[in-house]
C-alpha cells in the first residue's frame, strides 16, 4: 500500500461515485416526479424515507453484505440508494414549489400534463434539482470510503489501513485525494448548474 496503488484506488473511488450518483440521479428524479404528482402518497412516503436516510451507512452496508455478499454490486446498491435521497428530496421540493400561476398558464395554453412537466415544471425546478445533485455527489465521495470495508477497494483502503496500523500518513493519503475529488466533482456540478439552469432564471427576481 503506497503511492503506486493510489491511482488505481482513486479510479475505483471515482467509478463507484459516478456510478452511484448516476443511479441516484435516475431514481431520485423519477421518484421525485412520481411523488410530486401524488401529494397524498408523498405525505406518507417522504417521512418514511427520511427516517430511512438516518440509518448510518455503515449499518446499511453491513446489512446489504449479508444479503448480497462481498461484491461491487453491494457497494453500488448501497451508495446508489444513499445518493438517491438528496436528489429525490430536492426534485420533489423543487417541483411542488413551482408557482401555481405557471402551471395554470401552461394548462390554459393547452399543454398536456407531460408537456407541462417537461417544458415548465422541470426547467423551473432545475436549480433545486441540481442543488440536490451537488449534495448527493459530495456525500457519495465520502460514503464511497465504505467500499473498502467489504474489500472492494477505493480510497477507503488507505484510510482503513491507516486506522488499523495507526499510520496518519496513510489516512491522509486516502483522505486528501477524497477531499480533492469531492471539490472537483462539486465544481463540475456547479458548472452544470450554470449550463442547465434556464437563462431567464439566472438573474434572480422571478422564478421559483
Amino acid at each position: 500500500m503506497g503511492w503506486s496503488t493510489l491511482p488505481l484506488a482513486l479510479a475505483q473511488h471515482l467509478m463507484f461515485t459516478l456510478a452511484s450518483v448516476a443511479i441516484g440521479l435516475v431514481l431520485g428524479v423519477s421518484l421525485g416526479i412520481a411523488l410530486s404528482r401524488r401529494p397524498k402518497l408523498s405525505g406518507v412516503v417522504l417521512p418514511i424515507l427520511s427516517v430511512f436516510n438516518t440509518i448510518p451507512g455503515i449499518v446499511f452496508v453491513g446489512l446489504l453484505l449479508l444479503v448480497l455478499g462481498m461484491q461491487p454490486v453491494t457497494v453500488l446498491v448501497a451508495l446508489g440508494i444513499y445518493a438517491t435521497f438528496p436528489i429525490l428530496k430536492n426534485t420533489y421540493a423543487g417541483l411542488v414549489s413551482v408557482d401555481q400561476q405557471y402551471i395554470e398558464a401552461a394548462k390554459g395554453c393547452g399543454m398536456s400534463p407531460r408537456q407541462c412537466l417537461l417544458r415548465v415544471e422541470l426547467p423551473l425546478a432545475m436549480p433545486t434539482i441540481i442543488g440536490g445533485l451537488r449534495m448527493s455527489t459530495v456525500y457519495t465521495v465520502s460514503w464511497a470510503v465504505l467500499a473498502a470495508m467489504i474489500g472492494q477497494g477505493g480510497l477507503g483502503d488507505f484510510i482503513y489501513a491507516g486506522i488499523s496500523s495507526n499510520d496518519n500518513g496513510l489516512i491522509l493519503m486516502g483522505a486528501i485525494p477524497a477531499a480533492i475529488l469531492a471539490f472537483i466533482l462539486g465544481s463540475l456540478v456547479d458548472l452544470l448548474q450554470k449550463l442547465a439552469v434556464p437563462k431567464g432564471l439566472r438573474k434572480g427576481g422571478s422564478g421559483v
Partner: protein
Amino acid sequence: MLRFEHVSLSYGSQKILDDLSFEIQEGQMAVLIGPSGCGKTTTLKMINRLIEPDQGKIYLNGEDITAKDKVDLRRHIGYVIQQIGLFPNMTVAQNICVVPTLLKYSKEECDRIARSLLEMVGLPYEQYAHKYPSEMSGGQQQRIGILRALAASPPIVLMDEPFSALDPMTRRSLQQEVRSLQQKLNKTFVFVTHDMEEALDLADVIIFMDRGKIVQMAPPEEMLSHPASGQIQDFLGKFIHAQSPKELTAADFMRTGVLTVAAGRGINECVSKMQRRNVDTLIVVDDQGRYQGTVSIADIRLTGHVVKTIEPLVRCSNPTVQAGDNAKDCFDLLISSGASYLVVLDDEGKVDGIITKTSMASAMAEQLWG
C-alpha cells in the same frame, strides 16, 4: 358563439355558481363584473375547462365543450391569467409562441407571428424578442401575456383582470390597445374585471354577477340608464351621472314623491292639503294612480262652494311628458308653455314625478359639477 345553459357548481355545501345561463355573440366584448368572490374567475375557467360544472352545459359555436378533448380545446381558446404567468425560463418570443409551438407550426411561422404581434403593441422584435420576462416591466409583461393568448388566432379570448396590477396610465393605454385589437381582429372576448370604468369603456355587453348569479346582463348604456339593482347602482357610482347630456331623459330631471289626490276626494280635504304643503295645485289621479289632471286653489275658491268633490274642477291643461322623453325637449316645453311644472308619466299613465324649474336647475347642476 358562447352559451351557458343552467350551469351550477358547488364546493361542498357552498354554492359557487347558481344556475347560470347566458349567451355571448360572436365578435362581442363581454365583460364579467361583480364583487369579489362572486364567481367571475370560476365562470371564466369553465369556458376552457380548467373547472368543470356540476350541472349544466356550455356550448362553444353550438358544440358542447365536454365533447372535445380538453387539451385541444384550450389550444383554441386564448387565456390571459390574472398573474400574467409568463414562463420565466422562456424568452419573450418563446412565450408568445407557446401555443403555436404546441400546434406544431413551423419555426418560420412562429417567428413571423412573434414579429407581427410585437410590432402591433409597439415592442420592436429585434429589441425585445430575446429578452426574458424578468427583464421586462410590468406593463410590457402584461402585453406579452395578451399576445401569448392571441398568437394562435383563437376565435375566443378569455382575460381575467389583466390590468389589475398596473398604474392608471399604463392601464388606460393597454385598455385602448385591447379594445382596438379586439375590433381589428373581430374576436370574441370574455373579460373579467372589478373596475366599472373599465367595463363601461370596453364592453359591448356587461354581465353583472353577485353570489354566483347573474343580476343583470346589458350593454353599458342600458346598465347606466336602468341599473337592475341598488348594488349595480353602487358599482356604477359616479358613472351613472356621467352620461352625455343628449341621453338624459325627463326621468333624470324630475322630482319624485309628489303630492297626489284621488278625484273623489272632498273640497275641504284638498284645501287643507294645499295649505299644509304650501302649494296652489294638486295632481289628481284615479284609483289606479293614473293621471287625471290638476286642480287649482283658484278654481276651488271660485266654484268650490257648489260642489262636494274636486272631480268637476279637474283640468287637463297642464302639460305632461313621458318619463323617457328627451330632457332638452322637456326643458323647452317647460319654458314655452309657461306652466309652473310638467307632469311626468310612466308607460301606464301613472304619475312618476314632476319637473319644475328648480328640479331642472338642480339636475343640471349635478350634471355639471357631479
